């Protein structure tokens, strides 16, 4: 009976490890990595549990890294001075946020709050930098993926901005500064 119990504990641990591996594999940033490299990343991540309403990070906090939602929901809020915060996005399981923290040292530009009991996998820059010093190719692949993701988002944002200004231009005949 003790052997069965012991075996069951380790089986549960293995199942949990496999689930984390599967979550990481589905993240676009890690899709260029081999299984071995992904196992290395798995050893670097932290699994954090947040209660309903608990703040994951606040606007102005140092950016340390990204979070991947394993279960639950996370609300991303823009804090407005002397007013209530505005909900920007509600992210669910499989989605990720805070990836800019892997690239630069700027403070967080939004607040992330757990909505309901939430489990998130944290992947942080110090761990990435340590891993890069030992396996430079792994670091390069991850940084390149993050850069591609941010680049794609920037293009989308510029496209949307372009459409808004073109619409405004038609209404006001004023050419925006960046289009001149």
């Amino acid at each position, binding site marked *: 009976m003790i052997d069965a119990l012991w075996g069951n504990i380790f089986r549960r641990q293995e199942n949990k490890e496999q689930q984390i591996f599967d979550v990481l594999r589905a993240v676009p940033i890690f899709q260029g990595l081999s299984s071995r490299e992904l196992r290395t990343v798995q*050893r*670097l991540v*932290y699994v*954090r*549990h*947040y*209660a*309903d*309403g*608990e*703040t*994951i*990070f*606040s606007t*102005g*906090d*140092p950016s*340390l890294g990204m979070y991947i939602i394993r279960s639950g929901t996370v*609300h991303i*809020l823009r*804090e407005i001075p002397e007013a*209530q*915060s*505005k*909900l920007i996005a509600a992210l669910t399981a499989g989605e990720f946020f805070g990836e800019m923290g892997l690239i630069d040292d700027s403070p967080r530009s939004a*607040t992330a*709050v757990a*909505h309901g009991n939430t489990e998130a996998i*944290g992947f*942080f820059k*110090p761990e990435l930098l*340590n891993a890069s*010093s*030992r*396996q*430079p190719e792994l670091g390069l692949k991850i940084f390149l993926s993050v850069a591609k993701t941010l680049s794609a988002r920037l293009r989308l944002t510029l496209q949307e901005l372009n459409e808004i200004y073109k619409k405004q231009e038609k209404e006001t005949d004023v050419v925006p500064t960046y289009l001149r």
Partner: protein
Amino acid sequence: MLSRPISARRTWTDVGYLCAIISAVGFLLYLLGTILLPFVAAGFAAYVLTPIVEFFERRGLSRGAAVACLYGFIVVLIGGVVLFVTPTLGREIMALHTELPRYYNEIHRALILLHSSVEQQFPILAQFNLGERIAQASVVHLTEVGERLTLNAFLLFSALLLVPFLTWYLLLEGAAMKKFLIGCVPNAYFESMLNLIHRIDQHLSSYLFGQLINILCIGLLSAIGYSLIGVQFGTAIGILSGIVTVIPYVGAPIGAIAALLVSLLDGSSISKLISIILVSSAIYAFDHLVVKTVVFSKTTDLHPMTIILILVVAGDLLGLWGLLLGIPIFCIAKIFCEEIAGALKRRKPATHPIGM
């Protein structure tokens, strides 16, 4: 639903709890100091040797193979030291042991002469009987040092058996242990703690590894330099110079003073004394212009007066250990205080969002 606003009072309470935990851990370490010494030494060794392990990992080796390579390299290094350095060092230590009574008598004679001439110049000092007091204090001090060395030799022997064994496992599993400990930190302080540890790691790792390279470079250069110009006990003085070079400002002249003292007691010529000064100056210049510049990627960024103050206070509180560890301990405390101050500044109440 959002959590309640975090008040400044609660933050200060948390800081108080943290200080209490650190004090309790520090007190426990103080009580169990002797027992925990091999573990602390192993942790220190693992921390300093980690860059070498990472060097091997960058060459494609697994962690286990990298640690095995490091140990192989250390065995070869120890073998080299035993074959080439130990005979010379052993001869010098035996010679020093034989010459020590003569050196003591000559220093004692010189001090008596100095004391007499000072008392002739300043008769008022005779009432204080300074000569006898200094002689008594030095005897007591030497006896205490002798007893401590005997006791420490026993501890050193037991630690030498345990430390390599513990260091091996810390090099292999240290990262996982660190991750587990960081994972235990509550969510509210998790990122701050991770950032704090990362900053301390960056500064401390480069500082300690840099000091190790510095000790090896200066020790080797001094041993070779003093031996070449014919200073008696040149190898031993060179090794001493290497070890004390970690003490800023104070360490560098100690080796030169030791070499000058030995040469003076041996009745060496003026030209030899000048050679010693030239060699010491060249080593000091090389240390500051080349070794420290290349090896220390991140400086302590402290004003020289601050460094001197730290050395004086740490030396008074902890003796030799204070001189050796004062600067890194201060840097860690500074980073810790900066993080706490930053966290306190960023504390503000969370507000209810629109649209929930």
